């Protein structure tokens, strides 16, 4: 076996199953309200108001990993959503139009995605989430509210935080009316405390990859990040990451690497290619290369969360995200990560339909290589639309990149 299987995966399967079944139950009964939230949106506010929270990006990633996305994207294209725009959006709308969901594949008793009572976005990651949610608001005839975050932020200033925390506070009144539950700051603080704990544990999980050999790969990370995305602010997520961390620490103690014969340590910058996770995981492992870390998995570390100052700290945490920052900040960040994880090479994924999470289009790889001297490779592909990917060309490029590293 080229990539060692993580035992906690069984628990992960159960945690995710419980999460989707609770959502399904909420959707089919009137006991709880369902909120749809963008993946780095204000989930803590929603949980404090007892919403069951569904994350369409997670759903679309499932469309990608189940390789349903590419077939569904054209249906969204046909109603006016260009093949050039976010393939999370187009795959998800395509799935809605065709009345299919990967949830049914995974859990046959779940017949559809949960119906929203409200949709809540934050444009910190991209403007597309707003367009995406607007479409569903119209379809389901439910309100859509959100937070507009400035983009290409260098230093996160007091003004940024005030501007965003004010928008977050303004959401409360609207959400109280929908949930029919009064906002309780103590509850928000409790949720935030759990989110903070989840974030810290997730960070520790990812940081185990600083060890040589690394006990986990980026590909493991894309699977095991599930609870940090959809269940942050809950005990289940905290509990899960304690289990996962213990297993990884055990691997470190016993010098067990996720990839047998780890020889090269790589960093993945950009979106995963959801429909090819196994393909790339096996390819890198067969070349004795471990993709140890990524910006993508790191994006669910929210170190600024502070329950003593909930709104300001949420505003800060959700604005300090890599994706919303300036190129100057991003370059510094990548330099830091390359050093922290002892990286031999960086893979930049140029995702055709995701300009916001593609950092190879304005000369960054070339500038970075000049400064840190670490070689890089740009792979052309996409997060969900496999038509944008040439498997053969990517494979040759990756193999040649490893041969290039072998020369050094």
């Amino acid at each position, binding site marked *: 076996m080229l990539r060692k299987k993580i035992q906690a995966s069984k628990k992960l399967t159960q945690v995710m199953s419980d999460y989707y079944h609770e959502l399904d139950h909420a959707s089919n009964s009137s006991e709880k309200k369902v909120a749809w939230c963008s993946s780095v949106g204000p989930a803590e506010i929603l949980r404090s108001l007892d919403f069951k929270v569904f994350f369409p990006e997670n759903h679309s990633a499932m469309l990608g990993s189940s390789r349903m996305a590419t077939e569904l994207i054209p249906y969204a294209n046909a109603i006016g959503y260009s093949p050039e725009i976010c393939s999370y959006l187009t795959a998800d709308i395509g799935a809605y139009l065709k009345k299919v969901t990967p949830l049914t594949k995974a859990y046959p008793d779940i017949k559809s995605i949960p119906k929203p009572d409200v949709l809540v976005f934050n444009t910190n990651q991209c403007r597309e989430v707003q367009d995406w949610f607007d479409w569903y608001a119209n379809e389901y005839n439910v309100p859509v509210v959100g937070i507009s975050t400035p983009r290409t932020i260098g230093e996160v200033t007091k003004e940024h935080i005030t501007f965003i925390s004010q928008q977050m506070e303004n959401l409360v009144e609207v959400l109280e009316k929908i949930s029919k539950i009064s906002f309780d700051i103590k509850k928000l603080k409790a949720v935030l405390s759990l989110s903070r704990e989840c974030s810290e544990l997730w960070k520790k999980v990812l940081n185990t990859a600083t060890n040589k050999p690394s006990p986990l790969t980026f590909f493991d990370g894309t699977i095991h990040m599930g609870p940090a995305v959809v269940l942050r602010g809950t005990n289940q997520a905290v509990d899960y990451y304690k289990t996962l961390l213990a297993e990884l620490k055990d691997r470190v103690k016993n010098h067990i690497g996720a990839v047998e014969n780890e020889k090269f340590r790589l960093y993945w910058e950009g979106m995963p290619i959801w429909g090819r996770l196994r393909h790339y995981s096996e390819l890198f492992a067969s070349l004795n290369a471990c993709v140890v870390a990524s910006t993508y998995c790191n994006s669910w570390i929210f170190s600024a969360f502070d329950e003593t100052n909930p709104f300001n700290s949420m505003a800060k945490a959700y604005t300090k995200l890599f994706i919303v920052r300036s190129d100057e900040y991003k370059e510094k960040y990548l330099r830091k990560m390359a050093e922290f994880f002892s990286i031999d090479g960086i893979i930049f994924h140029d995702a055709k339909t995701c300009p916001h999470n593609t950092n190879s289009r304005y000369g960054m790889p070339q500038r970075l290589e000049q400064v840190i001297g670490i070689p890089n490779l740009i792979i052309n592909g996409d997060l969900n639309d496999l038509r944008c990917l040439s498997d053969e060309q990517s494979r040759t490029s990756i193999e*040649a990149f490893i041969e290039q590293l072998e020369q050094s």
Partner: protein
Amino acid sequence: MTNKIFVIGIDVGTSYIKSVIINNNKELISSFIKRTGTSIEISSKTALEEVINKGSLKKSSIKHIVATGYGKNKVTFADSYKTEISCHAKGAYYYFPKKNTIIDIGGQDTKVIKLDKEGKILRFKMNRKCAAGTGAFIEEIAYRLDIPLNELNTLALKSTSNTPLASFCTVFAKTEILTRIKEGEKVEDMIKSAFGSVIKRIIEMTKIEDSVVLTGGLIAHNSIIGDILKKELNTDILIPPHPQLIGAFGAALFALEKYEVKSQ
């Protein structure tokens, strides 16, 4: 040491399969080229048998085989495998051992490989998921104009004008060429423009520095590619002997190294 050690390099390209035998003095003993066709398994066996026959050798005298190219993993009889990036770098550096940029224009992909003075790959770039800057572009144009591939170079060399194509895409470029010919432009000018278009796609892939070594099937049969590139880059254009065989030759050089390491 006598020249009795023979190794093979096989380059399974998208359009052609190439095989070469070299001896332990790195001298080319024989070579073979044929269309890759639909079965790499059959083509690669033919390429193996033919190159051995042409070299008047026995199969048992071959000490190591390295396969390269997009179909390399289908060459089941190979002893080891290397990417075409490394093989072209190795082959080109053998003829021009200095800091170079290698441009290999293949049937469906183009590679730009930057080497340091020791022949190490500093970086490389392949064309994106589009064949506009490759041999396939020229093949398509020839097919649409109903002109044999081996006449394109002679025709293009007759052109005295410089009229670039506006279209990027292969399909649209074919339409543009036909339209412009109907409107009175000369066929030779349009063919030269098509070669120019391939060069433009390559120049935009990455910054090209130092002298350039051109390899691959397109340059092997179309010297005009070197002329246009020289004009565009204003740099030395170096063309090795048998440019179409450089990938296979590089693979054979790797095979020799592998054999020498093994026998130490």
